[in-house]
């Protein structure tokens, strides 16, 4: 009888599995190790002088496919730490509830000023709680582990070798790749 034989096989399989170590974990109590590149929430880290690294170039605001970043440039000022002139940012708001986590904002940042962190945001009771302002983002940078990916690293990893030009063929005259100007220069 095929049925009994197959039932015995199925019963054996499930029993074998019953004696394996469970693969699920009690999530809030046990957190699985996340990959080095794991990306979840955001942070605005400081630069080497202890100031916020963001210079308000708007590159991330522009690239964001779901337009979750809103920022206001603060203009150029003398840095209180180094004394040199540099650009600042006044306001930076990131609406995590609409973010799709595509990492493009990190990739386009030439000053490595926005990075993603490996700890996800805690679930919130109101949508407003998921809106990350400067304060929260800077706190994230201090409290949470940053992901491996920064603008420099991501661009380096992806950069085609210098020797050969990007293979844009002449065959399609309609094609043109705009040169990428340094965003800092562009916006200030």
């Amino acid at each position, binding site marked *: 009888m095929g049925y009994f034989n197959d*039932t015995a096989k*199925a*019963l054996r*399989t499930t029993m074998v599995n019953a*004696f394996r170590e*469970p693969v*699920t974990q*009690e999530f809030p109590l046990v957190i699985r190790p996340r990959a080095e590149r794991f990306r979840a929430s955001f942070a605005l880290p400081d630069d080497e002088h202890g100031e916020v690294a963001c210079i308000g170039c708007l590159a991330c605001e522009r690239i964001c496919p779901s337009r979750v970043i809103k920022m206001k440039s603060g203009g150029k000022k003398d840095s209180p730490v180094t004394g040199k002139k540099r650009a600042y940012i006044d306001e930076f708001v990131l609406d995590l509830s609409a973010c799709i986590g595509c990492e493009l904002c990190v990739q386009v940042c030439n000053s490595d000023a926005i990075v993603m962190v490996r700890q996800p945001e805690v679930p919130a009771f109101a949508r407003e709680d998921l809106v990350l302002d400067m304060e929260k983002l800077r706190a994230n940078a201090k409290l949470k582990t940053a992901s491996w990916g920064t603008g420099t690293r991501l661009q380096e990893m992806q950069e085609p070798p210098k020797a050969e030009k990007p293979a844009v063929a002449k065959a399609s005259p309609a094609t043109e790749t705009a040169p990428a100007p340094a965003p800092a220069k562009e916006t200030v």
Partner: protein
Amino acid sequence: MNELVHGALYGTLIATAILSTIAMGIWFERKFAGRMQQRLGPTIVGPAGLLQPFADIIKLLQKEDIVPRDADRGLFDLAPILAVVCSLGVAAVIPFSPSIIASDLDVGVLWVLGIGGLMVIPTFAAGWGSNNKFALLGAMRAIAQSVSYGVPLVLAVLVPVVLSGSLSISGIVAWQAQHHWFAVWPIVPGLPAFVIFFLAMLAESNRIPFDIPEAESELVAGITTEYTGAKFTLFYMAEYVHTLVGSALGAALFFGGWDGPFAPGLHWMVLKTLTLFVLIYWVRWSLLRFRADQLMRLCWTWLTPIGVALLLVSAAWVTFGGTN
């Protein structure tokens, strides 16, 4: 009058025992299923999640009671209580030990089949009363299924009846105890009859692989689609009671009930019942389900004639040779 008190007292005792076994059974099932699926199962409520069933029941009882506008209110409300009565009532004649039995009816087997067969009524009342198409389809399937599997069930139950010559379940158990069931119990009619009984019992209590009446991937929740809160709890409970009482019945009819060496009768009965109970859940979490027509074919073209044949074999055993 004395018997009334006896029945009520033992009834309360047995019902309480069954319900608490079921509460632990639900915990065990969830834990067991979790392990089979390499999950943890309940862990939060109580130590190792032991209090989970109680949390479930309290949650279910707190739920709002929603009755669909188009439902037939009378049938809709009556069905859950009837379901519990029909599934729990079977336990009245099952001997859990030589002395623990609510009512030692001389036609216990008929009582079991009769009350168990009544289960069709609450099922259909729920399905028809809900005025929901999924519920109706589920009820139709349930009736076709339990009605069909009633036949092999009766035939399988008749085998121990014929062998022991008694219609009382305690009589059957006593006969098995006398004849050392594990040694003398004839393998040929006994074991296949148990297999048929087990399959029919799975079908009657709507367990996978025969759970087409409430196939949740097809019929959402079958007859319980429109039920919420306490009424759903009753159906849920009735299903588990049906399974547990069915296991107890199988243990009593085919495995010698309370009979066993070294330990008191009650221990043996509980052990045998729980073994069958675990087996049912092991099967449940391992197999896929049949389709309605395959179920019917299995019942009518295989189980029914085999059941009749087994009946005749056991009759021949009794008449021409075997034991007396």
